[in-house]
Structures are given as structure tokens and as C-alpha cells.
């Protein structure tokens, strides 16, 4: 059973659909293609609904969800890390 979902194949993040503990291996399924999935090892505790990075992302890089940029990394983010307000910000507001 997947414990995370990914909206689009281009996406940089997986959304946790259960609470995930640091160090757990998480199976993330793609919504666009149910038979495809990736497994990512979580580097943080990730609460249900929060995002896990699927790749290393450099500070200043745009991050994709729904196949669209949802914000810009404010710090380097490693694969498996929690992506949230501490390391991602809007490109519209909070400039």
C-alpha cells in the first residue's frame, strides 16, 4: 500500500498519506500512472499531508508539484528531507 502520492511525473515531492517516521522507506505512487512508484528513505519525521523531497534540490531552485512550480527553495534540500515553510517559499508573496 502506498504511503505517499505524487501528482505528476515531473514532480519533485511526494505527499505523505500517513505519518512517517525518520528512517522509514516510503513507497510513493504516481497519480497519473498508478502502476508506477518510487521508494524514498525519509530523513525526517513527516506528518500526514506534508511533503518529502524526491531529489536533491539546490537553494534558489524552483520546486514542482502538480507539474508546476509551487515555490523556491530557501535552503539546500536533500532527497528524503521534509519540504515545508522552513525551506520553501512562495514566488508571489513574502518577497
Amino acid at each position, binding site marked *: *500500500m*502506498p504511503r505517499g*502520492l505524487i*501528482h505528476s511525473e515531473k514532480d519533485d515531492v511526494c*505527499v*505523505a*498519506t500517513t505519518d512517517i517516521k525518520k528512517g522509514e522507506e516510503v513507497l510513493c*505512487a504516481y*497519480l497519473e500512472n*498508478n502502476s508506477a512508484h518510487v521508494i524514498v528513505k525519509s530523513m525526517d519525521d513527516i*506528518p*500526514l*499531508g*506534508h*511533503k518529502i523531497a524526491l531529489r536533491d534540490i539546490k537553494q534558489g531552485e524552483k520546486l514542482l*508539484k*502538480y507539474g*508546476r*512550480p*509551487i*515555490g523556491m527553495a530557501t535552503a539546500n534540500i536533500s532527497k528524503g528531507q521534509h*519540504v*515545508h*515553510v522552513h525551506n*520553501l*517559499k*512562495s*514566488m*508571489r*508573496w*513574502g*518577497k
Partner: protein
Amino acid sequence: MMTIKGYLRENGAVGVRNHVLVLPLDDLSNAAAIGVSKLVNGVVSVPHPYGRLQFGRDLDLFFHILSGTGANPNVAGVIIIGIEDNWANKVADGIAKTGKPVEVFPIEGYGDLKTIERASRKAKEIVQYASEKQRTEVDISSIVMSVKCGESDTTSGLASNPSVGVVVDKMVDLGAVAMFGETSELTGAEDIVADKMANQELREKFLKIYKEYVDVIEREGVDLLGSQPTQGNIKGGLTTIEEKALGNIQKLGHRKVNCVLDYLDPLIREKGGTLCFVNTSSAAAEAVTLFAAKGSVLHLFTTGQGNIVGHPLIPVVKITGNPKTAKFMSEHIDVDVSDLLDLKISLEEAGERVFNYMVKVMNGRLTAAEVLHHEEFSPIKLYISA
């Protein structure tokens, strides 16, 4: 063709509830209106803080919302109570066009107690008139509905919103009207919404409305970071307004938007189904109040972290995709689609679940918000008062 059992009103509009409304015209008239609702069984009052010294477009919007609320097809008849009768008569004239009974009771020259007595005698008559109205078989295409999300989280974009999108597609295909709004919460996806417009004219009108909203924010010199997304949204995993907007628009389904309404525009139905953008606030009660004033008789409300809003006159169906919210706030949730997160059901099945529940509510089943007295009535105000 598909039918439901609704209330056919004098002007041909169809309601799914049969309320008698006592409408206070202004803040000063709330006490008398509540007085009538305590004396007479079967009337609903909608206290609110406005109706004094408003002006310009704000005043026009106030009249639009009050007249539209009384004209809503879920309302069988209306009593209006106002400190002065000139503005109250203007609202009454708007409601009277629907053909339903409406009468105004001014407080000046009478005082509250005499007004409550006079209004209660008339309210009693209207309640008895309304009690004879029966549900009849009507085509579902006569329904006007609306959608909005609140206390959203990432499960809204994954599960509850796309489920509602399936319902919106189905209702539009059946020839009904579905309305959506939340102007501020389209930020980051406004180009996608613009691309969904059926023609260039609607596209320009939508972008003009959206730009006006952005201009207000900039003129006020504020940054909405911290309030959009809200703290509840952030707790639920949403990080930026762009992410929230992309989740939000999953509710819109896949049909072209063939109607764009600014605050004061009346609803015009398109043949073959109508999908309508309405310029609204993103605050739950304000948006639902405006949708109801535009004629929505039923609202689908998706929530992630657990928004509990209702409306005095239209059923608000709560849908969640968050298994924790479904469990810990179960008394507020009408439809749980959280099993979509485990991929145990398909999106089509989830949409079917929401649709079937909505039909039950149209036929008379009460929503959680109705049973729990969630009767939020919140007219939008644009300016400071004169």
C-alpha cells in the same frame, strides 16, 4: 434526464429546502428579528452587523446580498424588519419579483415589541402557507449549486477536491449550474483558470476581476504571506499559495467556464449547463453567503483540517479526504473520501459517492451543518462606512 424531489417556486426556480426567513435589514433590527424567530415556530432569522451608512458599490452589494438571500429558491416567504422602511422596501422589491410572499415591518414609530407582534402575526401566516408546499419531481438541471474549500490541506488537492470536480462535471453535463469563486485562492493558478474560459470576453472579464483583487492587496501595502496559506493550511502541509491554488482548482472539473460574475452580476444560465466563476472572498461564510445570494441551493464544501461552516438556508455538504479529520471531527463530515489516499477506490468512485450523497441531501436528508445549527450568514462588506 435525472430527477430529484424539490420545491418548485412561483418563478419556476427549484429549492431543496422550504424555509421561512425573517430578514433583519440592519444591525439594529437583529433583536426584533430574533424575537420573531423565538415566537413563531418554523422561521429562520439571519442576524448580521451591516445595513447602516453604507455607500456606493458596497451599498449596492449589500442590497444584492439581502435581496438575493430572500429570493433564494430554498425560501418560501420572507418577513423583513428594518429600523427605517425605505431601504427595507428596496430589498423587499427585489424579493417580490420572484412571486413569493414578502412583507416589511419598520421599527420606527412602533418600537421592538409592537414590531415583533405585527411581524409575528404575518410570519405565522407565511409559515402555514409554506407548510402546504410539497416536494415534487423536478429535473436536476434546474439546480444551482456551488463549491468551495476551507481549512484545506494537501489531502484536499489529492482527494476531496478532485472528487468534487467529478461531481461538477456531471452536474454541468446534466444541464445544471455549478458556481465556484475564491478569487484570492486562485493565485498561482489564475492562468489555468483563465485558460478554462469559454471565450476571450470571459477570459478578459475574469483577469480584470483577478487584477482588481491584486491591486487592492498592493494598494493596502500588505503581504498576504502568513494569512494565505492560513496557519491551518500550513499545519496540514500546504506551504505556498501556489500549492494551495493548484489544489483548489481540482474542484473545477474539466468543463469550460462559460459564465463570469462580478459581485453585482446576476446569474444567467447557459443552455447545456453552466460553470460559473463568481468573484468572492475566500472566507468560508462570506463566500457561501454570496453563492446563496446568487441562487445556489446547495453547497459542496471540501475541508482538510476541518472547517465546520454552514448557512441558515442552504445545506452545506462537508467532504474530507483527510482520514484524521474524518475520524476526529466525524460529527461535521458528511462524506469521507480518504480511502482515495490508499488508492483503494478510484476517483470516479469517490465522485459517485459525493454525488449520491448530494442527491440524498437535495431530496431532504439534513447535512451535519444543518443538524448542528451551523447558520453562518456573513454579507461581504467592501468599504468603511460613511
